[in-house]
């Protein structure tokens, strides 16, 4: 089948001339899990932003799930993002809402009915092991638990691609391993996963493909 992610000679230059990505070509197969590594400023976040349509490439093509992102108009970006599962370093939870409401948000955005939402939120919370916490507020949870809320929110729309930007950046090693294991489990159910991280030792232990970026250039693991 087609690749879930394909970058073809992608160049990203920010206004002001900073070169973030230079001629990057890479592929991620459907159902694959890979790590995107590199020092800070190597272009990991830029690559993630291009996939999430937060930024547009200066040159080259980004093709996600068979769709060339250059053809996605601004008003269609919300619909496109609904099929991605985005996970962030600082969790990006809404702190005035309960765990349940946070996880439900993508479904509320899609306009699903009440019963449907409740059923799927509980299933997602069960997956990340937080079923008993649904009435709590995020601030009462530990960092690892908050990130698992973020992951539950990302998987609730059954995305074809999970995109995590430094998901363990704020967590200690034990919790980081837990989170990575959770990603592996989600990957085993068929979801493609791309994780940007600079926790090299953790990556090596996990044993998935490693895509290495250095100063905006691809060093290893293009395909």
């Amino acid at each position, binding site marked *: 089948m087609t690749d879930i992610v394909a970058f073809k000679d992608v160049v990203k230059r920010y206004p002001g001339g900073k070169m973030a990505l230079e001629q990057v070509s890479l592929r991620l197969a459907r159902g694959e899990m890979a790590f995107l590594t590199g020092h800070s400023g190597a272009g990991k976040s830029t690559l993630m932003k291009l996939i999430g349509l937060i930024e547009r490439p200066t040159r080259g093509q980004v093709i996600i799930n068979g769709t060339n992102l250059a053809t996605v108009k601004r008003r269609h970006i*919300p619909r496109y*993002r609904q099929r991605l599962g985005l996970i962030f370093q600082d969790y990006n939870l809404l702190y005035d809402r309960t765990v349940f409401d946070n996880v439900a948000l993508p479904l*509320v*955005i899609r*306009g*699903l*009915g009440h019963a*449907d939402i409740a059923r799927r939120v509980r299933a997602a919370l069960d997956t990340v092991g937080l079923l008993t916490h649904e009435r709590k507020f995020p601030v009462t949870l530990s960092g690892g638990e908050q990130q698992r809320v973020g992951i539950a929110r990302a998987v609730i*729309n059954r995305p074809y691609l999970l995109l995590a930007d430094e998901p363990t950046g704020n967590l200690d090693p034990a919790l980081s391993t837990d989170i990575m294991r959770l990603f592996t489990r989600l990957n085993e159910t068929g979801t493609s996963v791309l994780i940007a991280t600079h926790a090299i030792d953790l990556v090596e232990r996990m044993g998935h493909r490693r895509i290495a970026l250095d100063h905006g250039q691809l060093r290893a693991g293009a395909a």
Partner: protein
Amino acid sequence: MTASGNASRKRSRPGLTSPALQRAQKTLAAPAQGWAGSHARCLIESLGRMHRRWLASLLTALVIGIALALPTGLYVLVKNLETLSHSWQTSVQASLYLADGTTEGAGKALAHRVAERDNVESTRFISAAEGLREFRESSGFGAALDALSGNPLPAVIVVSPRADMPRAGVTDLLDTLGKQSGVARAELDQAWLERLYAIVSLIERAAWVIGLLLAMAVVFIVGNTIRLDIENRREEIEVMKLLGASDAFIRRPFLYSGFWYGFAGALLALCLLGVCFLALAEPLATLTRSYDGALDIAGLGWRGAFGLLATGIALGWAGCALTVNRRLAAIEPR
């Protein structure tokens, strides 16, 4: 209704099991229910959010309320002045000064003929001698009048037009009567009424101008409040956009906030006007008594109250709509 009707009809057919139908119905109904549900949820949610910052919200609503109450109060005043001046107009009388040398008999006959007209309530003939006597009694110029050789006053017919006649009709009547033979001059003693009309129309115009200015103020107040609200929730909006929320979805709760601000403002305006009426009740009662209760003071009325609520909601919504698109477009996830 139609969907369930179809379902019951289809249920009897073989091959279509009822669980399958239920599923189909659910998928058909889900988006619509979700859409309406989403609006209902936004309506309640935005109210809840205002409730959490109730003091700030109350102050904003109060400012809107004052801005709405002022022109509305003026409107009520103008409406009452209009009815008042109309009722005063009925006490207007026209004076027909008869030509010199008209005999008392001819004058009386003319008064009788004029009284026959459709639009005339009654007439009263005052002969020159009667007029002189009345004037002597009321003016105190008796000695001066004695010095005159003859009677300088003409005979007069006092005409009371019908009470329900419009203002233009009275003027027309006066013109017609002035052309009658034997009538030297017809006069309507209504200069003070003309002035009252001018003042009323001035107040009415002022109410419109003030109303327009304050409507703009309400739009800007709501717009600014929503702008601050959006600024405070920038992070939340960014997260929503990252999760694939459309602009319409993000805009909705803010638009409903605008709705609530307008509604609450209008409601407070009604309360303020009610308090004003209570404060004016006693002097108004005195005034009414002095007119033997014939004075009919009207409040805003149900239609006026609903109009005020609708105006408040429309202005709140407009103020929000003018701000929200521009502000939300400026917020993009980084």
